[in-house]
């Protein structure tokens, strides 16, 4: 295959009044002032939002922060099958399995850590989960924090959401 050449049109030459910029600056200021005035008159049309007091509604399939689901009795739904750390391309999930106090459950995660600094939000863990125990439907990003340790979400944090 040969490399194709695409011809791109050069920007047209500026006329003399344009090259002086004077008129153009005034025109630009006009646009800015126009927006400001129209925003004062019609406040509901403003495009920007007052984050973090106001938050945008995310689309339903947005992959955000993880959460762990609970059973009816409040215990984690996760059975520590290790499907999510197996599927995880970023290797950000650490599970330690243990013998559950509930004999009907048998296996449960003693530890379930997600390193949010490593997570790439691909959603493979959700796809892999056979128990629908992990979801990414919290609809929000990982908030920033000041230490790395705080961004390793433990099982308690993940069950709260």
């Amino acid at each position, binding site marked *: 295959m040969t490399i194709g050449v695409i011809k791109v049109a050069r920007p047209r030459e500026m006329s003399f009044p344009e090259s002086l910029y004077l008129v153009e600056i005034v025109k630009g200021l006009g646009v800015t002032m126009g927006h400001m005035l129209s925003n004062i008159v019609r406040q509901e049309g403003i495009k920007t939002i007052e984050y973090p007091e106001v938050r945008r509604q995310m689309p339903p399939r947005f992959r955000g922060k993880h959460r762990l689901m609970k059973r009816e009795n409040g215990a984690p739904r996760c*059975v520590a*099958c*290790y499907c999510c750390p197996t599927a995880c391309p970023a290797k950000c999930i650490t599970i330690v*399995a243990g*013998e559950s106090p509930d*004999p009907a459950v*048998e*296996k449960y995660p003693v530890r379930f850590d997600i390193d949010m600094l490593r997570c790439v939000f691909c959603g493979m863990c959700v796809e892999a989960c*056979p*128990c629908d125990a992990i979801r990414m439907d919290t609809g929000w990003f990982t908030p920033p924090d000041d230490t790395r340790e705080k961004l390793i979400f433990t099982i308690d944090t993940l069950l709260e959401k």
Partner: protein
Amino acid sequence: MPTLTINGMAVDVPQGTSILNAAKDVGVEIPHYCYHPKLSVAGNCRMCLVEVEKFPKLQTACSTVVNDGMVVRTDTEKVRKAVTGVLELMLIHHPIDCPICDQAGECGLQNYYMKFGLHKSRYDLEEKVHKKKVQDIGGQIVLDAERCILCSRCVRFLDEVTGTRELHFFHRGDHSEISIFPGRPLDNNYTGNLADICPVGALTSKDFRFKCRVWFLKAFDSICTGCSKGCNVDAHHKGDILYRLKPRWNDAVNQAWMCDSGRLTYKAMNEARLLTPFVREEGARKVAAWGSLLPDVAFRLKAAADKGGPDRVAVIASPQSSNEELYLLRRLATELLGTRNLAFTHRVAGDGFADDFLIQADKNPNSRGARLLGIPDGAVFDVLVSKIAAGGIDALLVFGNVLGPLSEEETAALLAKVPFVAQVGTNEGPVSKAATAVLPSASVAERGGTFTSHAGRVQRFRFGFPARGKAKNPVEILVALGNRLGAGWTFAGEASVFHAMAESEAPFAGMSYDSLGMFGQEIKG
């Protein structure tokens, strides 16, 4: 020799071979659950059905003996339908709890379902017959009756290999299950094998329970260090953590089995390891660097030999060391230090339990090798200990974590009599608590070498993963010490040491790592 054709391929096999084994010879895999090469043929799982010309019905390949002129087909639609049907029947009451099952990843049901099944279940979970899960039936085994496919491998193992017959079938039809008799748990030293031979997750290991998923594990060939039998094992590890040992087939040694205590020997390679070299100054541990510690140890040994004569220096070898290490250590003691104070002991604290199958009374993997290499055992060791106790030794080099059967107090009292004690060991123990200088050694999983079993079989254990912490291969330590003492050794790794040993030591003459191969080689004479 009967000649038959399997899927159009002609095979010559000895009289009495089953179709299943004949097919294996030509690379045709016939699915099976109840058949196990080391157990009697039961023919009850019906997975190995094959079509044989002139037979009106499908035959079980495991129990049908080949005949001259037989024409066997394993790839016809009739066979496939039958096998899929058998698999569906087995899965009717299976709980499909793979997410919490330790067998997942090495499970016969999972593997064959992907190959021959892929059907939708016609039973709802509620309609299934539920049996008792998570039963501790003694030994190293957890029983989940629900997952069982009633292949009877475990029943035959306990009947034919251990002869203890603890497990049996109870109830009938859909309710049929294996179980122990009430109040009579598994009571033998080979229960761990049940988890290995169980093709599904009905019998799983208590020790390995929920520790790790099997698909994360990697295996390497090793030798069990629990006793002098030298059972061949596959060591399974993830990173630098060992998770389990499984028997590796060697018909000359352990067949397909290993004992329960041997299975747990991996724990010492994970826990309480010596990871950094250190010296003890006025009772306190002070971390040292290899670069300064090795010359220092060599200098102290040499200085003691020069000052009071070579008989003021002693070397205690360990039957936990490989042949290569013992060979270098003997040369270091006799040629370089010139001392006659060299001994080891095969004795350890404990009962020295033995049976007539795999468990040997000598709990060290390489006592035979040490004796063959001319390191004296028994009485000579006792003489050396009394000499140390009498204050007749100025510098001592100890291999191993314990001094034979001596307790921690006895070891501490004995080593206090010697001004300088250097130890090369893998784990914290009585010796590391008393030694003046501690040189951490790589464990069996972290180095390569050979052991000589009680029967004189030289077998290789392989390097699994790099040594933890700052531990070093003892061959490397010995070469470094030897060269500081003026040996001029050029050994690089255990292979070159083995080569030199095979040239100079009669019992190992003519051996090489290639000739040892997978299964080892008997010594001469």
